[in-house]
């Protein structure tokens, strides 16, 4: 049986990774995710986990070491944030191209500059198109659950892709709260040993990461796209099994108080928790509004978004990153693309908020909702706007 325990969520992420018995951990500490590799290093040094902990000199090396080990058939884990992820950028696409199931805990933090260590989603958005599966956790329990699920999903023979589990820096990484920790035997039963499709071994030579001439590059790229699109089936299967084993339900788009809703707010990450309280307050006033929480970022759950938006008059999509000079927030862009072909679709408003650790209170969600409703005509043509920014 699992155990109900209070712990800092970053430490819990490390504990969850350890429960998955990785063979190799390679990571470089970076705020706000430092405690994840630090705690894993402790777990290994105390002999509680039989793994190679590689003290690398950079994130570039961390991901490279993970890929080498994964190529040799090892189960691997890494963790990083922000600039650390950018330092991995050169290798991110290679990991997915080589179909290596690296699991990463990404403590989301704003990109510099200006230099900022606090939370938003600009780090993962900068690596959005590198072929990794991306899950978003909204509280500590989901961090534990998603890390364990991540190994199952990534290593599935039908998937074989790297995966990142996103946990908001500070808002999640630095909070002590209560979580249910599955037991080792429960995790062992859920997560079988990794069986690589191919591995680097002197007895069975093979090549990985070879040159892709123009004659093959398009085919290789399409194969990777097909793989990540198809991973959806495995993700849903793994989530269904998780619910059976642990009783906790996971969906690509989670609904909160959507019964009879004519309007809805959509969030991704830990802000969804605070937004729930705002929804409660609005519902109490008799406003039929609900909340949609995006848990699966890649592959993007187009069909789930279409289903969730059906019958809505308006949808307020909240983003914690900017696509500079582009169509606003990355989440809203995907939502708009999902719904463009629908005849019955809600009006979409997109606010960018909570950047670089700007705190967002319950009242802010209510204000954003009211702002959307006020239908400011001057701005109605805008693709998006910033919320709560001084100097407007």
């Amino acid at each position, binding site marked *: 049986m699992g155990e*109900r*325990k*209070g712990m*800092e969520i970053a430490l819990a992420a490390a504990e969850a990774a350890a429960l998955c018995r990785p063979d190799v951990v390679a990571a470089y500490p970076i*705020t*706000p995710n430092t405690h994840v590799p630090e705690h894993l290093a402790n777990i290994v040094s105390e002999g509680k986990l039989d793994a190679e902990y590689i003290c690398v000199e950079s994130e570039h090396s961390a991901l490279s070491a993970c890929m080498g080990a994964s190529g040799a058939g090892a189960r691997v884990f890494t963790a990083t944030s922000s600039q650390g992820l950018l330092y991995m950028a050169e290798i991110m696409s290679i990991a997915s191209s080589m179909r290596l199931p690296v699991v990463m805990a990404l403590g989301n933090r704003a990109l510099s500059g200006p230099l900022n*260590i*606090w*939370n938003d989603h600009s780090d993962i958005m900068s690596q959005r198109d590198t072929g990794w599966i991306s899950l978003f956790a909204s*509280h500590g329990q989901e961090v534990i659950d998603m890390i364990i699920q991540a190994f199952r999903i990534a290593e599935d023979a039908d998937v074989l892709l790297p995966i990142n589990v996103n946990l*908001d820096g*500070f*808002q*999640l990484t*630095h*909070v*002590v*709260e*209560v979580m249910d920790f599955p037991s080792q035997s429960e995790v062992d039963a859920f997560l079988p040993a990794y069986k690589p499709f191919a591995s680097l071994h002197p007895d069975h030579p093979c090549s990985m990461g070879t040159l892709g001439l123009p004659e093959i590059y398009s085919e290789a790229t399409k194969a990777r796209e097909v793989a990540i699109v198809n991973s959806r089936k495995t993700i849903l299967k793994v989530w269904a099994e998780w619910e059976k084993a642990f009783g906790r339900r996971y969906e690509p788009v989670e609904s909160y108080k959507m019964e009879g809703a004519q309007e809805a707010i959509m969030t991704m990450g*830990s*802000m969804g*928790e*605070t937004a*729930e*309280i705002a929804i409660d307050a609005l519902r109490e006033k008799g406003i039929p509004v609900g909340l949609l929480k995006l848990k699966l970022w890649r592959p993007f759950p187009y069909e789930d978004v279409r289903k969730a938006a059906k019958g809505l008059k308006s949808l307020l999509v909240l983003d914690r990153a900017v696509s500079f000079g582009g169509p606003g927030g990355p989440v809203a862009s995907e939502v708009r693309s999902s719904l463009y072909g629908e005849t019955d679709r809600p009006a979409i408003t997109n606010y960018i908020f909570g950047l670089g*650790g700007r*705190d*967002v*209170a*319950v009242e802010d969600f209510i204000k954003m909702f009211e702002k959307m409703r006020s239908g400011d005509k001057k701005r109605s043509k805008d693709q998006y706007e910033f919320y709560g920014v001084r100097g407007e």
Partner: protein
Amino acid sequence: MVEFRWHGRGGQGAVTSVELLALAAIGEGKYAQGFPSFGPERRGAPVAAFNRVDSERIRIRSGVYRPDVVVVLDEGLIGLVNLTEGLKEDGVLIVNTSKKAADVMKILNYSGAIATVDATSIAWKELGVPITNTTMLGAVVKVTNIVGLSAMDDPVEHRFGKIASKNIAAMKQAFKEVKIK
């Protein structure tokens, strides 16, 4: 839900306090959060840390703006930091000080509930260092009744190992000595 804001200086263990209080509440079957003020902390500079404790699952992830309880670990912060900012009208201020409560209230221009204890003297005596984070937990437990005093034992023992008993003794002493006005 009861919300706490702890004021201390970097190195005085405010973050440890919120962790221990959260773990004690969780140990009693409650729900709790403990978290630092997010960002870099400098030794000696004023810092804050926060708790939320509730009988139901806590969903809110924003900062604490309207605390029910404000705890002050360092007397030197009186008059330096706005200690009563956002404190609810029926909230309570718990201060480590050798001053009289009335004097603290005068400096802070504060007329709400206050509890005082000379935690620095207790910490010197019991621990041999002027670090008051565990000592003040005793005062907080007495004033707020947020957990039973014995609920602190497990988290403190787990955290401090060999020196846990000294910390528990200091905590119990503050529990006894704290004056509620």
